[in-house]
């Protein structure tokens, strides 16, 4: 068994004295783990930093084996983000959540593309909104899609301002008003099309970002966490508190 692919490093766990077991989000093979011999050596350690884009060759005698990776770095996100605590928190949360939530060896090309887009966004503006979108896609990939295309009660496609915590479907202002205290606010930038007059939240401190994180966080905690049976990674909570802190 052997294949070549491109992937993003999600984590690298020490194995033996110098080796590492790397978990990669690959373009065609989903989240895939493999042994990287000497992965903790001086020359290879930087290659396995979370967020690094690399080309990888995986090989094993049988498909069910852990197998071995040979990796070549393509681009490192980490070095550009080390000095920025907020972007670094996003990278941490992205890697930890993907590693925590995605089933192994199940291709998820849409999420891979969104992950690449997130890494690109982290180099510029709009990264916080891109991250919230990525979490929505993660929920969809793991079986908890949020349907924000039309109101669950009336079928209206405008004035969608809430999401039902039970069904994950959007609810319009008119139909949701009596239940407003039990519904989750839906920020406009998560709608399939941005309503007229609304702007894409380029800045990380836009109020819609925290609203969006609260929405996806609810489903991550109440649906995905229950299925996985492990608590949400620390990095996700850390990101939320980091984005709520304005002074640093």
């Amino acid at each position, binding site marked *: 068994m052997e294949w070549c692919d491109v992937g993003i490093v999600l984590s690298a766990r020490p194995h033996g*004295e110098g080796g590492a077991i790397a978990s990669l989000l690959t373009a065609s093979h989903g989240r895939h783990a493999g042994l990287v011999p000497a992965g903790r050596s001086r020359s290879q350690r930087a290659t396995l*930093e979370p967020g690094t884009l690399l080309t990888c060759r995986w090989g094993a005698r049988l498909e069910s084996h852990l197998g071995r990776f040979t990796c070549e770095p393509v681009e*490192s996100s980490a*070095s550009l983000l*080390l000095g920025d*605590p907020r972007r670094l928190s996003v990278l*941490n949360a992205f*890697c930890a959540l993907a590693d925590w939530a995605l089933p192994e060896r199940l291709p998820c090309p849409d999420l891979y593309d969104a992950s690449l887009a997130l890494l690109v966004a982290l180099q510029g503006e709009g990264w916080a909104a891109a991250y919230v979108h990525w979490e929505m896609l993660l929920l969809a990939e793991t079986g908890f899609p949020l349907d924000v295309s039309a109101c669950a009660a009336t079928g209206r496609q405008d004035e969608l301002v809430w999401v039902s915590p039970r069904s994950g479907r959007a609810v319009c202002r008119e139909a949701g008003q009596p239940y407003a205290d039990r519904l989750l606010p839906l920020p406009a930038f998560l709608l399939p099309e941005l309503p007229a007059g609304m702007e894409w939240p380029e800045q990380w401190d836009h109020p819609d970002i925290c609203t969006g994180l609260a929405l996806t966080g609810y489903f991550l905690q109440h649906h995905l966490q229950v299925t996985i049976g492990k608590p949400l990674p*620390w990095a996700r909570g850390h990101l939320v508190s980091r984005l709520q802190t304005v002074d*640093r």
Partner: protein
Amino acid sequence: MAGPEIEHLMQMLARLPGLGPRSARRAALYLIKRRESALEPLAAALAQVAERVRPCPQCGNFDTASPCSLCADPRRDDGVICVVEDVDDLWALERTRAFSGRYHVLGGLLSALDGIGPEDLHLPRLLERAGQPVVQEIILALPATIEGQTTAHYIADRLKAAETPDHSLRVSGLAHGVPVGGELDYLDDGTLSQALRARRPV
């Protein structure tokens, strides 16, 4: 082949970093053959270390004295504390003889993968030490990795939050860039871009 005591010795040696079963066998045989010059001095040294060496309650360094010789040295600057991940980093900095302040060993880094959270690090003691009026600067000498810098930002936040109007702290980190003797052509892209961003007037 060998008696149970020798087998046990080889098993214990094989657990040491850098040694496998084969090299442990060689080391055991070497020690047994040189009882007076190697085995007995080594056994005595191990017994002494086991009996006397303890982590320093102040900084976390290993020493026979409590507090350790670095914390007890009156010539060192009490105003600066250098925070390191582990004792080997402390020893590395001490070898440079470039730092004459105090140290604090964190005992690890925040890690989502290994489930290491803030409560697993020696942070309360650091915050306590940083709160002393004499302390002016905290140097975060942590690795230039995602985990290292996440931990550094987290500690910086905690230190800022603990500041009072009468006592402010300068929190700094180590520079990242071209190593001494390094040629640009051989540097990785990340280090090179970091070095370029952190350029300074010559």
